């Protein structure tokens, strides 16, 4: 059985693509055959984050329009044998993603025995974002501790609950998960920033994880290596924990409490 996971947020720049890349890689590292699809037609970026931008020949829209078959368009990941990337089209417009077309591609991936399909949603609540969530079984709602991000997440939850196939057909609803990203324990501790519990109280969906704000993410994207591969960094560990929880394991939250630096650290710096 194939599970379709949509990574969405409403707001742009909150960490959807970063999260899609790391969640897909993490699932593949756990042995699941996984595909990650870029739905951001016209603004493709997942290829860069996955480090496969130079191997893009055909894209999602080519497959939908029958100019290429799925096999030709899927790019095998450098780090994981069982992970494949389906890039977005850089030239077409969003309307090229038809509902029938998207469904056809997802069905074909299902036939090919994929365990997970991760859909990286574009920002907004327009056609592209709706296409990315239409066929979702589970949704990871990426939210930053910031007012506009929280409000937009609530909007997108409303759209999941009204426009997903599961909602329209009256099946069991899409399973929603909250992923708080770019979290700064220090600023939350000092009352400058919403805490992850504040966000969870506001959005009222189960918490999948909290990903700290970290420069490791920029280093990862510079190199085209998903952040989850930056071994030993809090970001990679936090994504690993989130994947474990997604698969039903229990992991205590890490990297959410602020620890005051000791005197030595304060005097001599260091991270």
């Amino acid at each position, binding site marked *: 059985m194939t599970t379709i996971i949509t990574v969405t947020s409403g707001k742009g720049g909150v960490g959807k693509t970063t999260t899609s890349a790391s969640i897909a890689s993490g699932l593949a590292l756990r042995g699941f055959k996984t595909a990650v699809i870029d739905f951001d037609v016209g603004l493709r970026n997942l290829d860069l984050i996955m480090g496969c931008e130079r191997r893009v020949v055909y894209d999602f829209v080519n497959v939908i329009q029958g100019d290429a078959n799925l096999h030709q368009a899927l790019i095998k990941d450098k780090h994981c044998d069982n992970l494949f990337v389906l890039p977005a089209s850089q030239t077409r417009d969003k309307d090229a993603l038809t509902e029938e077309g998207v469904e056809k591609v997802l069905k074909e991936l299902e036939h090919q025995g994929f365990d997970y399909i991760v859909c990286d949603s574009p920002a907004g609540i327009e056609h592209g974002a709706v296409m990315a969530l239409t066929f979702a079984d589970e949704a990871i709602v990426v939210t930053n501790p910031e007012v506009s991000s929280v*409000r937009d997440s609530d909007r997108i939850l409303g759209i999941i609950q009204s426009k997903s196939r599961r909602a329209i057909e009256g099946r069991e609803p899409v399973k929603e998960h909250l992923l708080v990203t770019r979290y700064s324990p220090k600023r939350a501790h000092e*009352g*400058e920033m*919403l805490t992850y519990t*504040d966000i969870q109280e*506001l959005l009222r969906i189960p918490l999948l994880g909290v990903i700290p704000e970290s420069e490791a993410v920029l280093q990862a994207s510079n190199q085209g290596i998903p952040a989850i591969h930056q071994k030993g960094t809090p970001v990679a560990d936090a994504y690993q924990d989130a994947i474990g929880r997604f698969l039903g394991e229990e992991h205590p939250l890490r990297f959410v409490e602020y620890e005051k630096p000791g005197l030595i650290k304060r005097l001599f710096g260091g991270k």
Partner: protein
Amino acid sequence: MSWLSLIFGEKKATASVAKERLQLIIAHERACASGPDFLPELQKDLVAVISKYFPVNPDDIKVGLEKQGNYEVLEVNIVLPEGR
């Protein structure tokens, strides 16, 4: 701000303000999202019922949902035709 916080550049704890504002706006937007869907239907039904008793122009019947403090108020405005 105390003189201490001026010297040490303490920042204002604004997260609680953010939370309160979000609580209000999210509750409001959730209510709206589940609300207006039925308003056009209700408007049509009202036109049908009222025109059984006297002729009305469909545009002269206005229906709206409004928030007043803690209450939602359903407002129905019916303009009767002139010369009655």
